[in-house]
């Protein structure tokens, strides 16, 4: 029989205001196995924990029940308390009388009754607990970063600098992500390429970093410390080792109909192309859907002009299998499609552009070589209207409910850059609120208004219409309480941003949870912002939520530090609550082996001693290092041989009995 102590926490007034803690203590004193019961204001504090330790000594406890907040909160804390007092950490059970009792129910009598029942269930379970020891597993000292934008690059550099190997998998032909498309960055107006390209070069040349560009993650198996990942290296149709990056093939390619993804569709590119001049690796790729050779069998000009003989039309996709100890997701974002926001005439008027397209138009390496001209007639725009919150903060279903965070700042940046370069151009910004939460951000936006004369008008655009070759923008001015019509040459829409579309399939492969907006969920929104609830998976950059470059770099470093902490361990302490098969009951049917999602069960021939008889039997054997403790095998087992430590059949039945008493 166990010697159980029950400790009921007040949690200040969180529990005590609704649950009569003293009554709970009295009610459970007489439960089988209970030798002492007490209440305390804050069980998890040093005072509470030392009270438990004293009771363990005084009463010779073999285990204890804490009635408090959710086990997801403090089970680990109380396990440590047990260990410090010399008890096995698994001789602890938690009754959740806060999140699932005092915070839910208002009636004191019902809440107290329920708290007593939940405590009885925990005591009944603990009576059947046995000491458990967690197994250990190795940690593979290599990390995988999915995504090669600034977030992925920064995380990889930090992990590599700490001495660990990192692979970056990037689906486009080059690393750099969205930051490579930017012209200047707020609030310092640094040139984006100037601060990014050195990092890109570092990542490419670092001894510990391996780049897999034009590649995608195909399959993930395993668990923290031991992931096996299949990476699909898509066929570039160019041999990376032979290519010198001279660019002649891209120059000569006769197929010029494809739209450049890097330049947001504002110019054409060849079928064989390098996305941008500073691409890393500086190796072109053939877009087989646009290539005349792949479509008709003719042409093949690039192969003829290639001095290095690097063009390889027969190249095929390859699968590479690699092992990793940790995985970081850094899949980034894209602007939303504007098809449900027809009032802005984005699809109808060439002069209505998104902010990212505007960024490319301003960029000296962009489609117009940095000259800001109207896409329709290449004339200089004399009036530009910037529209904020296009598809953000929208609960009507046409856009996203959240604020995209970066648009107020980048529009201020765009407005200032236009006014600086073209002082004769009038700039209007139509906004709902101006959000400038970072360091020096508000001062930056005020410069736009006070130094550069950008007209900030509080009010939204109702519609944009083409009129006599210009754009007629009808909007409200809430401060003046008027409706105004601006005649503009260009309209720039601050479109909302959403996670990259590959995020969902990556999330499924990693069993990493995502929210309804497809952003990855963090383990705790405040205290664990860079870890996914799935062990071994970490989050970096906008894939976790909209953020600007300073925040992305900060978060990338944080994710790297978590990875380094994981990879630096000699052994990983595994899960103690693993499955185990009773060999005398096992009939060798393989039902458990077939349902295990991790392939943790195998069958062996073993000599079994049963009722005095010794014979060789085919029995199940669980690999405790791989078993994750889901319990699927326990229910599949027809003979009841398979059970799950920590959640045994008898334990769960005891809980059911205690609740239904």
């Amino acid at each position, binding site marked *: 029989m166990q010697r159980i102590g029950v400790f009921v926490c007040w949690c200040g007034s969180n529990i005590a205001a609704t649950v009569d803690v003293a009554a709970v203590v009295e009610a459970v004193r007489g439960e089988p196995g209970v030798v002492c019961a007490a209440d305390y204001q804050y069980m998890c504090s040093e005072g509470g924990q030392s009270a438990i330790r004293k009771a363990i000594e005084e009463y010779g406890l073999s285990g204890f029940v804490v009635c408090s907040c959710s086990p997801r909160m403090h089970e680990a804390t109380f396990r440590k308390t047990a260990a410090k007092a010399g008890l096995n950490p698994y001789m602890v059970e938690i009754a959740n009388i806060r999140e699932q009792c005092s915070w839910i129910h208002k009636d004191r009598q019902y809440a107290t009754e329920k708290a007593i029942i939940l405590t009885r269930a925990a005591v009944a379970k603990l009576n059947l607990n046995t000491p458990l020891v967690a197994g250990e597993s190795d940690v593979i000292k290599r990390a995988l970063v999915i995504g090669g934008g600034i977030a992925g690059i920064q995380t990889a550099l930090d992990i590599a600098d700490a001495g660990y190997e990192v692979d970056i998998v990037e689906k486009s032909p080059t690393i750099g992500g969205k930051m490579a498309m930017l012209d200047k960055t707020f609030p310092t107006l640094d040139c984006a390429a100037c601060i990014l390209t050195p990092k890109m070069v570092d990542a490419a040349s670092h001894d510990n970093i391996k780049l897999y560009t034009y590649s995608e993650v195909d399959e993930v198996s395993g668990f923290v410390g031991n992931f096996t990942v299949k990476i699909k290296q898509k066929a570039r149709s160019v041999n990376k080792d032979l290519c010198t990056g001279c660019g002649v093939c891209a120059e000569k390619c006769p197929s010029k109909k494809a739209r450049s993804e890097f330049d947001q569709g504002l110019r054409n590119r060849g079928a064989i192309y390098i996305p941008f001049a500073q691409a890393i690796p500086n190796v072109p790729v053939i877009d087989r859907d646009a290539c005349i050779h792949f479509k008709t069998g003719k042409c093949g000009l690039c192969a003829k002009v290639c001095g290095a003989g690097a063009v390889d039309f027969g190249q095929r996709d390859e699968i590479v299998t690699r092992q990793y100890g940790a995985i970081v997701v850094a899949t980034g974002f894209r602007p939303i499609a504007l098809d449900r926001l027809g009032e802005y005439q984005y699809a109808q008027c060439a002069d209505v552009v998104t902010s990212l397209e505007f960024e490319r138009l301003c960029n000296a390496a962009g489609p117009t070589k940095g000259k800001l001209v109207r896409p329709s007639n290449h004339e200089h725009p004399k009036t530009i209207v910037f529209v904020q919150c296009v598809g953000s903060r929208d609960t009507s279903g046409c856009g996203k409910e959240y604020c995209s965070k970066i648009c107020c700042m980048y529009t201020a940046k765009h407005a200032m850059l236009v006014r600086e370069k073209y002082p004769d151009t009038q700039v209007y910004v139509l906004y709902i609120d101006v959000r400038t939460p970072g360091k020096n951000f508000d001062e930056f936006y005020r410069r736009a208004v006070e130094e550069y004369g950008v007209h900030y008008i509080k009010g939204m655009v109702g519609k944009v219409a083409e009129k006599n070759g210009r754009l007629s923008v009808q909007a409200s001015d809430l401060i003046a309480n008027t409706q105004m019509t601006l005649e503009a040459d260009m309209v720039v829409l601050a479109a909302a941003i959403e996670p990259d579309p590959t995020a969902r399939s990556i999330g499924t492969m990693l069993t990493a949870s995502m929210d309804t907006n497809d952003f990855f969920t963090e383990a705790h929104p405040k205290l664990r912002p860079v870890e996914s609830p799935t062990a071994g998976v970490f989050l970096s950059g906008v894939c976790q939520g909209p953020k600007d470059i300073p925040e992305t770099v900060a978060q990338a470093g944080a994710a790297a530090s978590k990875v380094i902490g994981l990879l630096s361990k000699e052994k990983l302490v595994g899960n103690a609550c693993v499955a185990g098969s009773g060999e005398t009951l096992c009939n060798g049917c393989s039902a458990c082996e077939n349902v295990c999602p991790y392939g943790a069960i195998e069958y062996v021939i073993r000599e079994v001693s049963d009722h005095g008889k010794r014979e060789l039997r085919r029995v199940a054997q669980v690999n405790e290092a791989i078993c994750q403790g889901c319990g699927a095998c326990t*229910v599949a087992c027809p003979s009841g041989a398979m059970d799950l430590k920590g959640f045994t059949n008898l334990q769960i039945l005891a809980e059911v009995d205690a609740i239904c008493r």
Partner: protein
Amino acid sequence: MPIEREWEPLIVAFCCNWCSYAGADLAGTSRLNYPANVKIIRVPCSCRVNPLFILRAFQRGADGVIMAGCHPGDCHYTSGNYYARRRMTLLFSMLDYMGIESGRTRVEWISAAEGGKFAAVMNEFAGAIHELGENRRLGDIRCKNYQK
């Protein structure tokens, strides 16, 4: 003789640690309300729930049993909730054959972010069990403790 109170349904909820139990915690953190009739048992995954546990609950006097797991495709253990779904389908078919009201058992998929859904489901289920009344067909009177 103890004073007889008006009958309150007893509802047992099996919640998986990674999704629905966390969703229940979120319902608590958000201070939502659902009836105290619902008592939650934590399991690592919905696939840990043996149909025998559910039958045991009914035998011991539960009036309704609900199993909540992760949404299909989102199971922390990849395929656990698929197994749970299949097992529950068979269980419901068997209960139906035995003449047990189909509203007494339920399977719901509730994620860790769906505190609101958890509360709404529990409220609705408790209401439905209240309508159905006391579980007489599966209860074992030998297990009933009259000294509650």
